[in-house]
């Protein structure tokens, strides 16, 4: 049975690595306690600072193909509750849930004394760690906080140093993705003494525009402002940025992964790229705290199946497999193959290869896509009368003329047909022995 207990960034202990990220699900003690009851291992408190005012209409989302909230955008600011109230509730939560991790997310004016003050008070309240919110990209950044700090390595380092002057608990710096090279800021946090990193915060976004009123969303009295984007859509971006800092020898800090994690699969992916804990917000906003049950259950079952006893057994395992393009083997060759027994005849691979790739999938008897369609449209078809007309029957099988043929000699192995095929296992990409020794671009440049 897998052991999910985790100790993160040199001292934050929790029963499992699943934390709620700083945001609406961790707004108050009552919520955090219900979240712990549901199974969450930790919670990063909604960012504490001088209480702000919010606008109404705060979220907007991107739906995709009939599914809600592929991506979520928000223009909500940090906590609108007094610092005292938040800290008192942290004390209460820690008293009732001593084994769970409570991390205080902090954001105050960029003054040394102010930071010293909030750090001391948070730790006195009982926080197990601190997360410096240098990532929030909207609203607070206009006031010189959030991503306004995180986008300048010098500021990031400076404030981290101030915090570390007084902090006794682990200090995490939460990074913004809205920057050219995230490693610069990650290194600055390291040099400032950070004990860990949280990545990523939300991505600058405008989710959409109402085409009736021409108003952007979320609509605040007819206008809007850019917000922070999160949810399933951002996972690939987050994974890349996490890999960037995890692979950078100058950073070398524990990472709490954030960005589009909605289940155990994404969690495992972030961990395979080096994360020790993961944080979730959008999925909990969408479906409630209950989603953590399958995150724990699914990850445990997968670990058992793979023979991993603890998270450390697989954490970072995939990092060595991410390299630079110049180190890829130019002589590795795969080609697409279609299993005619599984093909349903949608011909999506055919048109994708013709229009989006290398014209190496064919329908025999036709020269190009337009000819295929023209032939079908020219057919005279009549409604069959049951039992009287001989209907072309394939007994549920795909007519052979609809099964495309791949020209393997021309196939470049791009994967596109395999990606568009709706049937599992119908198109496979299979290695071909080229008879050549592996050779990378870098090697070729050196030898030629």
């Amino acid at each position, binding site marked *: 049975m897998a052991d999910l207990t985790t100790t993160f960034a040199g001292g934050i202990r929790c029963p499992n690595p699943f934390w709620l990220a700083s945001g609406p699900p961790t707004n108050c003690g009552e919520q955090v306690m219900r979240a712990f009851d549901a199974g969450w291992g930790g919670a990063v408190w909604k960012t504490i600072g001088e209480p702000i005012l919010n606008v109404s209409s705060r979220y907007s989302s991107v739906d995709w*193909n009939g599914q809600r909230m592929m991506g979520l955008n928000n223009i909500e600011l940090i906590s609108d509750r007094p610092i005292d109230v938040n800290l008192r509730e942290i004390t209460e939560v820690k008293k009732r849930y001593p084994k769970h991790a409570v991390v205080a997310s902090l954001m105050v004016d960029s003054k040394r004394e102010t930071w010293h003050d909030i750090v001391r008070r948070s730790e006195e309240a009982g926080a197990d760690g601190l997360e410096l919110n240098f990532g929030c990209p909207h609203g607070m950044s206009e006031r010189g906080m959030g991503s306004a700090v995180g986008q300048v390595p010098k500021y990031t380092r400076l404030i981290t140093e101030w915090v570390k002057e007084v902090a006794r608990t682990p200090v995490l710096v939460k990074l913004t993705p809205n920057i050219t090279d995230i490693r610069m800021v990650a290194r600055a946090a390291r040099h400032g003494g950070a004990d860990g990193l949280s990545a990523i915060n939300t991505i600058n976004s405008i989710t959409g525009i109402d085409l009736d009123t021409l108003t952007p969303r979320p609509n605040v009295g007819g206008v809007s402002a850019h917000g922070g984007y999160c949810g399933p859509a951002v996972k690939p971006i987050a994974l890349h940025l996490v890999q960037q800092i995890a692979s950078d020898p100058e950073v070398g800090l524990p990472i709490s992964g954030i960005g589009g994690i909605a289940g155990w699969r994404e969690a495992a992916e972030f961990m395979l790229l080096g994360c020790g804990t993961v944080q979730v917000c959008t999925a909990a906003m969408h479906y409630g705290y209950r989603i953590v049950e399958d995150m724990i259950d699914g990850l445990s079952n997968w670990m058992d199946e793979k023979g991993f006893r603890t998270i450390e057994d697989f954490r970072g395992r995939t990092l060595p497999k991410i390299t630079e393009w110049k180190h890829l083997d130019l002589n590795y060759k795969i080609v697409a193959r279609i299993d005619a027994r599984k093909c349903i*005849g949608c*011909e999506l691979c055919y048109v994708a290869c013709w229009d989006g790739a290398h014209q190496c999938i064919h329908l025999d008897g036709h020269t190009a896509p337009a000819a295929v369609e023209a032939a079908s449209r020219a057919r005279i078809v009549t409604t069959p009368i*049951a039992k009287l007309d001989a209907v072309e029957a394939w007994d549920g099988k795909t007519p052979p003329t609809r099964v495309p043929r791949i020209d393997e000699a021309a196939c470049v192995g791009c994967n596109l047909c395999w990606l568009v095929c709706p049937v599992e296992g119908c198109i496979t990409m299979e290695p071909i022995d080229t008879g050549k020794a592996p050779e990378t671009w870098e090697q070729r440049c050196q030898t030629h």
Partner: protein
Amino acid sequence: MGSAALPVPRNLERFPELHPALDTQSALAEANRCLFCFDAPCTAACPTHIDVPRFIKKIATGNLRGSALTILDANILGLSCSRVCPVDVLCEGSCVLHRYNKKPIEIGRLQRYAMDHFYSSGVGLPACPVSDVKTNIKVACVGGGPASLACAAELRRHGCAVTVFDNRPLPGGLNTYGVAEYKLRPSDSLREVDLVRSLGVEFRRAEVGAAVAIEDLEKEFSFLFLGLGLGAMERLGIPGEDLRGVVDALHFIERYKTSEFDAGRRVVVIGGGNTAIDAANAARRLGAGEVHLFYRRTEKEMPAFSFEYAHSKVEDVQFHWLAQPVEILAEDGRAVGVRFQETRLREPGAGGRRTVEPVPDSHFEFACDMVIPALGQSRLAGMLQATRGIEFEGGSIVVDRPTGRTGNPKYYAGGDCVNGGREVVDAVADGKRAALAMVQRLAVGAAS
């Protein structure tokens, strides 16, 4: 009778719609399930080759007008076809998802969704081009049913002048008078007639061959399109056929669709085709306590679509196989029962169809107060019978399939009078092909 009188108000509750409309969310979800096949089998299977994936994707993007125009471009009777087409053996029957253990896309209901939006928007079709050489070309469409409507619309779209001659009070043919009320209401058929009229097609109520001499039409028009449909229903050819209480299926359907009409208490329907089923179902809904359908072959040979048969069982129609009527029994000049003789099947003949023979001494009587014979319609082209160089075979007009051209180059024909009685969509396809052939011939004529 004006169109305002239809549908008969009581029919609205007696014949609730068989397939309720999709709401926006379910239409979107269904549209997004479509794989968007290339050279889609559904499009190939449609006699009018509606570009199904294209109109479905337009529903998914919220481009409902574009979706409707995609449908109407291929099939001007897209509304009635969405309701009456036997989609199981056409578009939906060919959906590739069948081969992937998934429910086929509900193409018929999606088409109706787009059509309903089009008709409720109040924005009509784009104006027809004012053509150059073709404006002097005039075509007469004889018969006001689907074949003629489709032919007329296509001709108008190419700039020709068209007049539709119909001998009924209202145009639309069987769409107005003969389709089961729970599938298509006469008011919807008349909306389609109005749509064709809006293109500039002229409608004249006249019996060609009687009030209007065929010779006059030949003089006035460049081409004549024959969309005559079929003749009266075949007679049983047994004693008692003209008694009160005996009404053939088409008259029965027309009467309940156009007037307040009650079925008998115990109704006998004779025949095994789709019209027999329509009449039997309608009799149940019009108050008959029992409806008994007699067919001289068995369930296996019944020409009705299997989904129609299944529906009829739900309506509690009782089926009796291997019996044919020999006499309708009378009392006071009214039908009070039917004398049947049992039949048995012979081995399949050269045509592959099993003929029947009566079983000696197997007569039995069956009491009822209404008899509805449904033996199919006779082939009719009376006024043209074997004249004017138009060739007939088995009572149907012989045409060149790709063009609809008859033996007389001035005459084209399509729909039931050519195919012996099929679906609305087949008639539309015939009418469209004939129109395009006429236009092409005009173009060739103009060029030479």
